[in-house]
């Protein structure tokens, strides 16, 4: 009498549940939206994230693609800003480098605490909320874009200017 058959159907069901809950409850303060890009593929989502207030990202809306593995949630999904975002913890191709999306076996920086890493009880919502706080407070210990890290550390004004300029450009201003 159980409804589980294979790992992938667990993944699909879990994704449908997460999406249903996001649809029903919305996100805290409406800070983001997320859902499958098309109804025929529940394993690829798009998230739209509002730049957090009182940060250089305020006013921007950032699109990211989420790609889920077939053994989700045992393994984490991948998150990639499209177009890429200028941020110390985002690789130049847009991939987000954040400890909550890393499993214990894959810690590229060795600086992350086990307690912050992926576990199967994490969710799209928790990850995106972590990414939003990462936008506000970059983590220089696990930098992904070294130039951006340096700029952030040494010339904050210029960092803010570049981020703001890119947002204006994105909005077509």
């Amino acid at each position, binding site marked *: 009498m159980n409804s589980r058959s294979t790992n992938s159907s667990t993944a699909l069901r879990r994704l449908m549940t997460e999406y249903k809950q996001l649809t029903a*409850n919305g996100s805290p303060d409406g800070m983001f939206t997320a859902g499958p890009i098309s109804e025929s593929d529940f*394993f690829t989502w798009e998230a739209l994230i509002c730049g957090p207030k009182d940060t250089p990202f305020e006013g921007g809306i950032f699109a990211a693609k989420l790609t889920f593995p*077939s053994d989700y949630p045992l393994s984490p999904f991948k998150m990639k800003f499209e177009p890429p975002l200028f941020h110390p913890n985002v690789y130049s191709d847009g991939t987000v480098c954040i400890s909550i999306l890393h499993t214990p076996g894959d810690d590229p920086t060795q600086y992350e605490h086990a307690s912050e890493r992926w576990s199967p*009880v994490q969710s799209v919502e928790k990850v995106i909320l972590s990414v939003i706080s990462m936008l506000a407070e970059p983590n220089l210990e696990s930098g992904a874009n070294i130039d951006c890290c340096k700029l952030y550390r040494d010339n904050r004004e210029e960092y803010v200017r570049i981020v703001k300029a890119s947002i204006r450009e994105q909005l077509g201003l």
Partner: protein
Amino acid sequence: MDTAALLKSVSDPSDFPDEKSAPGLRSLDHALRCNICGEFFDGPVTLPCGHGFCSLCIREHMRQESNCPMCRVAAPESSLRKNIAMEEAIAAWTSARPLVLRLVSDEKKSITEREANPSTTPSNAVNGKKRKWSSEGTFTTQEAGPSKVQKEKPAGDSRKNSGQSPKSPIRVDERDDEVEMVNTSDIEEADAVDPVVNCPMCAKSVLESRINPHIDSGCKIFLASKGQNVNNWLKIFPGRAKGKEKQTDDTSNDVEPDRLPKASYGVLKEKKLREMLQEHKLPTTGDKATLIARHQRWIMIYNANLDRAAKQRKTNNELRADLARWEETRSFKKDQVSDGVAYQEAHKNEFNQMIKDARKRLVKKETPEKSRSTTTHAAPSTSGPSNVVAGGDDDNVADSQDES
């Protein structure tokens, strides 16, 4: 629309109104679910830290990390203890859930009607009060206003009310047959008129006429037979062509079976591995890595099965069928792709079937209420990002809305 229908077919706590309108229902539904898979605990187990999961979910996690996914406190697999009380609570809740959803939905309907047509409810018109769930979980206003879509029935009139006190009539509609269990002995005669279909969610056999309430129940009830899953492996066990023959299976005796110990595969020869598999009547094909993976998985699902109450347990043949399906997915993953996109692409038929069934549900359930559905589920768009729409909590009982 298909996506919206699919979502409706998933059972989750947001099927119930928010905490303000129906205190406790969402949290109750949530508390009985595993935080790994999001479904009601299946073979619930508790870790030393006190957190609980489905036996199989946590065992899969513990192959990667020996800790609790919630609090990260270290915990070996041997520390898992089954949680019988939790399992009983889930059995009770899953059988009560369709009725509770029905009541919640009826209550919402009646509020909507009163708001739309206040003149028919003089008592409300006078004091301006709306009917609401009180904190005791009862309706604070009990007057039965005139209602076009509902009938008051005395409790005795309906099978599903049999447990209710006759003093407290329950509102039910005409479709009161959903909590009726299918008598599996009737299935063969019924086959011709009511074909057995595979549930798009759990892949188990369900009578076509019961597929919707089955999905509503989180795939817990209305299983038509347990034979369907075994088909693939029937070739291996030609003597057991019928899944029905539970009594011939070795899980049916009264002695609590022992858990299987883990093996240290490193030192084992292939011949020994094959013998070990044969011991459990498992296929012995494949290379050494396949043999090891098969044996490991068998031990995991076998031990997880023992964390279910005896009457909820799968037979060994059902476990073998589960193992066979797992291998299919696994070999697929290994040989071709590693991501869910391609998996889903390759299993297009299953997903199409799922969408087809969901569409059937949608047509069946939504058409009759179109006239008054000014506030249905926000249908996620089918192209571009399907945006989350906040608010509208009281729309979420749509799952159980009735035809009138």
